[in-house]
C-alpha cells in the first residue's frame, strides 16, 4: 500500500511538473515572457534535473537580458552534467558578462584542455583574451607600484587583478599591504579572509573574518558574519583576531555623531584619493573635535598629498604629540619627511673614505654644510671640508690637501638638474692659505637606480665644471658615467669617465673605463653604499707626468651622506 502511494505521488509530481513546463513553453511561444519565467521556475523546482527544460529556461532568461539568472541556470546545468562542454562554455561566457571574471577564466581554462576541438578553440581564444588583458594590467600596476610603493590603492588594484588571475598568494600579500597602509579600510579584512579561504588557510581566514565582524561599518561586519556562519570560532581565533587592530583612534560609539560621520566620510574620500573632499570632511570633523590627534594626522597627510606642505607640516607637528603611539609614529614619520623643507637651517654631511691601488694609499674626503633653508634660488651656507690621505711612495708629495677648509658659500636650487655653487674660505693644516672654489654640477639618472624597488637597467651621469683657486685658478671639467643593471642591493655595470682642464695639466686630462660594482651594505643606512671600480685609464697629456700614461686602478670606497 505504502509502495503504491509513493508511486502515485511520484506520478502526480511528474505530471504536475510536466504540465507546468508545457504551460511555460506555451507562454514562451505566445510572447508571455513573465508567465513563462514563472512557470519554468515552478516546473524546475519539481523536476530539478530536467536538463533540456532548464536550458530552454536559461536561454529565455538570456533573451530577456537577465544574464545573472541565466548564469545561475547554467551553473545548475553544469553541476548536473559536468561533461556538457557547450553548457560549460555558456556558463563561462555568462560569468564573464556578469563580472565573475575569475570564474570565467578558470572555466575557459578547464575547457581548453578537456573538450573537443570547436569548444577548445573558442575557450582558448576567450581565455587568452582575458588572461592577456589581466597580465598587461598587472604589469602596468606593478610598474606604478615601483613609483608609488606606499599607495594602498595600487596594492588594492593589484590584489584584485591577481585574484582574478588565480594568483591568491600574491593577492593576499597585496591585500595585507593595502590594509597595513590603510587600516581604516576594514573591508580589506573581507578580502584577506576570502583569499586565505581560497588558498586553504582556513584558520587565518577565520581570524581575518572575525576581526572584520568587529568593524564599525555595519556592511563589513555583517558580510564577515555571513562568511563565518556555521564555522566554529575558538578562543584562539578570537584572540588572534584582536591583533588586527582597526583604525587607531576611531573608538566605537553608540550613535554616530556628526563629527564621526564627517570623519567616516573623510576616511572614505581619503581612501579613494578624493582629496579635496577628504580635506573638507576632515576640517569639519576637526571643528567638532579639535583634540582628536587622528584627525590632525589625516589633515596633515591630506594637505601633504595636495601639495600644501606648509599646512601639512603644521598639522603633523600637532599630531606627533599624540598619546596614541600609532598616530604619533605615523605623524612623526611623515613630519620627518617634510622637516628638511621646513627648518630654518639644513645640515648636509657627506663622507667618502676610499682606497686606490694605483696610489697604494687610502684617502678620505668629507664635508659638513649648514645651509639657510629659504625658498630663494640662491641660498647661503657655511661649510667645513676635510681632505686627507695616507701618503704614497708612488707620489712625490701628499695626494691631498691634508687640511680642513672652513668656508662661506652660496648654492642654488636645482634647475633642470643643475646646481650652481661658489664658496670662499681658507685651508688649515698641511696646506695653508685662502681657498676659493665654485662650480656647476649636473646629475641625471635613468632606470632602476640603487635602492629602486624593482630590478632593471640603469644609467647615471654626473658632470661637473669646477674652479679652484688653489690649483692655479684651474677650471676642471669632468664627466662620470655609470650604466648597468640593478638587482636589489647590487648594481653591476660599467664606468666611464673623461676629464679636461683649462691649464692642460696631465692629472686633469684623462679617460677612464672599466667595470664597476656598487652595493648597499647590510645593517648600514640606505644612503650608504660601497663603491668598487676597476679602471683602465690614460692621461692623454704627458707634459709633466712622471708616470706612464696608461694605468690601472682598483678603487674601493664607502659613500655616506645624510641631510637633517
Amino acid at each position, binding site marked *: 500500500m505504502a509502495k503504491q502511494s509513493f508511486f502515485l505521488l511520484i506520478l502526480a509530481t511528474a505530471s504536475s511538473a510536466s504540465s507546468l513546463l508545457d504551460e511555460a513553453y506555451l507562454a514562451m511561444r505566445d510572447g508571455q515572457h513573465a508567465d513563462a519565467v514563472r512557470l519554468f521556475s515552478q516546473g524546475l523546482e519539481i523536476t530539478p534535473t530536467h536538463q533540456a527544460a532548464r536550458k530552454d529556461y536559461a536561454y529565455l532568461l538570456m533573451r530577456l*537580458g537577465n*544574464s545573472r539568472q541565466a548564469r545561475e541556470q547554467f551553473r545548475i546545468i553544469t553541476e548536473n552534467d559536468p561533461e556538457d562542454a557547450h553548457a560549460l562554455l555558456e556558463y563561462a561566457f555568462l560569468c564573464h558578462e556578469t563580472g565573475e571574471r575569475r570564474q570565467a577564466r578558470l572555466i575557459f581554462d578547464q575547457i581548453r584542455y578537456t573538450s573537443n576541438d570547436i569548444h577548445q578553440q573558442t575557450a582558448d581564444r576567450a581565455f587568452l583574451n582575458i588572461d592577456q588583458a589581466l597580465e598587461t594590467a598587472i604589469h602596468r600596476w606593478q610598474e606604478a607600484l615601483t613609483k608609488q610603493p606606499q599607495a594602498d590603492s595600487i596594492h588594492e588594484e593589484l590584489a584584485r587583478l591577481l585574484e582574478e588571475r588565480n594568483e591568491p598568494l600574491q593577492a593576499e600579500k597585496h591585500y595585507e599591504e593595502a590594509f597595513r597602509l590603510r587600516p581604516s579600510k576594514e573591508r580589506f579584512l573581507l578580502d584577506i579572509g576570502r583569499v586565505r579561504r581560497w588558498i586553504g588557510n582556513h584558520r587565518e581566514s577565520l581570524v581575518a573574518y572575525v576581526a572584520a565582524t568587529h568593524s564599525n561599518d555595519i556592511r563589513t561586519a555583517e558580510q564577515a558574519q555571513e562568511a563565518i556562519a556555521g564555522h566554529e570560532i575558538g578562543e584562539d581565533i578570537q584572540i588572534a583576531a584582536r591583533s588586527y587592530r582597526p583604525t587607531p583612534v576611531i573608538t566605537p560609539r553608540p*550613535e554616530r555623531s556628526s563629527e564621526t560621520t564627517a570623519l567616516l566620510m573623510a576616511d572614505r574620500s581619503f581612501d*579613494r584619493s*578624493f*582629496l*579635496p573632499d577628504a580635506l573638507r570632511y576632515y576640517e569639519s570633523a576637526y571643528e567638532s573635535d579639535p583634540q582628536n590627534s587622528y584627525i590632525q594626522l589625516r589633515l596633515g597627510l591630506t594637505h601633504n598629498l595636495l601639495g600644501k606642505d606648509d599646512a601639512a607640516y603644521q598639522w603633523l607637528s600637532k599630531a606627533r604629540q599624540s598619546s596614541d603611539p600609532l598616530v604619533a609614529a605615523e605623524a612623526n614619520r611623515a613630519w620627518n619627511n617634510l622637516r628638511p623643507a621646513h627648518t630654518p637651517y639644513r645640515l648636509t654631511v657627506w663622507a667618502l673614505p676610499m682606497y686606490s691601488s694605483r696610489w697604494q694609499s687610502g684617502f678620505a674626503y668629507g664635508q659638513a654644510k649648514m645651509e639657510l633653508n629659504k625658498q630663494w634660488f640662491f641660498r647661503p651656507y657655511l661649510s667645513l671640508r676635510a681632505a686627507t690621505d695616507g701618503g704614497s711612495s708612488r707620489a712625490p708629495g701628499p695626494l691631498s690637501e691634508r687640511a680642513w677648509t672652513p668656508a662661506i658659500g652660496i648654492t642654488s636650487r*636645482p634647475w633642470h638638474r643643475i646646481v650652481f655653487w661658489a664658496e670662499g674660505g681658507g685651508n688649515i693644516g698641511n696646506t695653508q692659505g685662502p681657498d676659493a672654489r665654485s662650480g656647476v654640477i649636473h646629475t641625471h639618472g635613468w632606470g632602476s637606480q640603487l635602492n629602486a624597488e624593482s630590478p632593471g637597467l640603469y644609467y647615471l651621469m654626473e658632470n661637473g665644471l669646477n674652479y679652484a683657486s688653489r690649483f692655479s685658478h684651474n677650471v676642471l671639467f669632468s664627466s662620470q658615467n655609470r650604466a648597468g643593471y640593478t638587482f636589489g642591493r647590487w648594481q653591476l655595470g660599467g664606468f666611464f669617465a673623461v676629464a679636461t682642464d683649462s691649464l692642460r695639466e696631465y692629472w686633469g686630462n684623462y679617460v677612464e673605463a672599466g667595470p664597476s660594482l656598487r652595493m648597499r651594505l647590510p645593517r648600514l643606512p640606505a644612503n650608504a653604499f660601497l663603491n668598487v671600480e676597476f679602471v683602465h685609464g690614460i692621461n692623454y697629456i704627458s707634459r709633466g707626468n712622471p708616470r706612464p700614461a696608461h694605468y690601472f686602478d682598483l678603487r674601493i670606497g664607502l659613500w655616506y651622506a645624510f641631510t637633517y
Partner: protein
Amino acid sequence: MRLLISLLCACFPLFSAAAWPGILASVGLAPDAAELLIGDSEQSRNLGFGSTPATVTVRRIIDSRQPELEIYWSPEAVISHFTLPLDARVFARERWTEAPVMAGLKRDDRIYLWLAADPGPHGFERYPYLLQALLDMGITPPAHGVRLWAFFDSSYRLRADPDILASQWRRAGIAAIHVASWHFYEPQRERDRWLEKLIEACHRNAVLVYAWIELPHVSEQFWQDHPEWREKTALLGDAHLDWRKLMNLQNQDCVKEIQNGIDRLIQRFDWDGINLGELYFESLEGHSNPARFTPFNEDVRREFQKRAGVDPVELFRSHAGNAKMMRQFLDYRAELTLKIQKEWLGILSGLRKQLPHLDLVLTHVDDQFDSQMRDLLGADAKSVLPLLDQHDFIFLVEDPATVWHLGPSRYPEIAKRYEKLTDRKDRLAIDINIVERYQDVYPTRQQTGTELFQLVHLATQSFQRVALYFENSILAPDLALLPAAASPVKKWARTPDTLTVESSQDVLVRWKGPAKVNGKAWPLYDGEFIRLPAGVHAVQAGEAGPQILDINAEVIHAEITAQGILLEYKSRTRAIVRMSDKKIRVLPAGHHTVYLTVATS
C-alpha cells in the same frame, strides 16, 4: 544608549511616519493611498500585529522580492519579535532570526503596510521596496512619464533579444537609448547586424537611438592600431585608465582619422542622434595622482613648454615651487578641453548637413555643484554653456561620483545653479548614475527602490530631461515603478465624471478605454493609459475612434477630424508614431502639424 535610541525610533510612529507622504509622492501616489503602521501601535494591535518580549537586533534584512540584495540598517535597530495576523503577507524579514520586518494587509478595501521600525527620515533608509510591496497589494500609480533616456552598453546584453529589450525599455518610460558606439566603430558583420536589429526594434517601439561617443576613447582596435597616438599620463605611461583607452586629440592626424571613422559609424546605422560624452581629461583624482593624470602627449607638452617654458612632466619630478606653474598648467588644460569640445561639437554639427534629423547631446560633468572638476578633469561648464548659442545641442549634466551619496534634493540645487548660467533652460538635462557607490551608504550600495524613485522624481521636476546611467544597472524590481517616478504631473482633481490633470510635460495618465480631453474626442490612448500634453486638461469618458498608441515626441495638440488625426508635435529628432493599425510613422524633426490616417481592417 544605542538600544534606547533604537527602541525610541521604533516606538514613535507619529514622528517617524513623517516621511510617508514623500515616499508615496515619489511615484505619484496620494497620501491616503495606503495606511502605514509602525511597530506596536494601537491600530496595529487591533489589526492583529502583536509584539513579544523577545527582541531582535536588526542590521540586515532580506526582501523576498530580491533576496540576494544586501540591505543593511545603519544604525542598527532593536525591535520586538512581532507576531502577524494570518492574512498578512510578509515582504521582508531580519537576516538571522527571520523575524518579520515588513508586511502588507488588506482589510475592508483598505491597504495597510506594516513596518517593524520606521522607514527613516528620508523614507529610504531601511526598506528599499516599500512601494513595490504596495504594488503587490494592488495599488497602481496614476501616471507615467514618457521622456526618460538611458545609456546602453551592448557588452552586457549581446545575447538579449532586441525586440524584448526595446519593449521593456518603452514600458519603463524610456524614450531614447544612448548606445555605446565604440563597440561598433570598426565594421564587423555579425555585430553590425545585431545593432541594426536593435535600432529597428527600438523604432518599432517608439524608442530613439543615439550614438554615444566617449572620446578620447575611440575603440579597442584603434588603440591597438595607433600606438603613436596614444594619450600619456604624467608618468608618461599609456593612458589606459579603467576601461577607457585614451587617444591624443591634440594631434590633427589622429583627429582626422577619428573624424573619418565617426563619419562612417554615423552613416552605417540609422541613428537618431549623437551623444558626445565626457570629453575632457582624467582623472577624478586630479594631479594628486600622476599615474592617472592626463594629457601628457608630446603635442601638449610641446605647446605648454612653448607657452610656459617648462615641460609639464617636470611638475611631477620636483616638488619645490611648483604651485604657480601647476596652476598655469591646470588653466591651460581647461582651455584645451574647451578647444577640443568646440572642435568636436563643430565636427558633429557638420554631420547634420547630410543627416539633418540628428539630435546632438553633450554629456558634461557638473562643476557648479562640485567645483573641483575644472582642476580635476579640465571640465568647465561655465565656458561650455555659451556654445548653446552657436550649436543646437542638449547639455546633459552628469553628477560626479563625489556627490553620489548626497540625497535626491541635490537635483533642484544643481538645476538652480545651471539656470543662472544660461537662458537655454529647455536644453538642460540631468544624468543620474545608478551604480554602486564608493561611499558607505545605506541601506543599499546602489540606488534602488524608494531612493531611486525619489531621485528620478526630483530630477524630473527640476530638468526637462532625465537620463539614467545605465539601463542594465537598473534592478528588475524597479522597472515597474520607474515611469511613475518620472511622472511630471503637478496637480490632480477628481470629480465623479472628470479628471483634471496639470502636468509640466507630456504624460501617460492611467485611464481605461477612450476619452474626451477638454471636451473633444482624443486620439492618443492605448486602453490602459491616455497620453496628455503639458498643461491643464480635463479628461472624461469618450467613444472609440482612430488611435495613436504611442508617440516619441512632444505633443502640442491632437484631435480627431474628418481628414484623420490632426497632430501638432515638436521633436528635436525624427518623431516616431505607433498607430493602432500597427503601422509605424516616422515624422520629420521640428515643430509640425500633420494629419494621420488609420487603416481600418
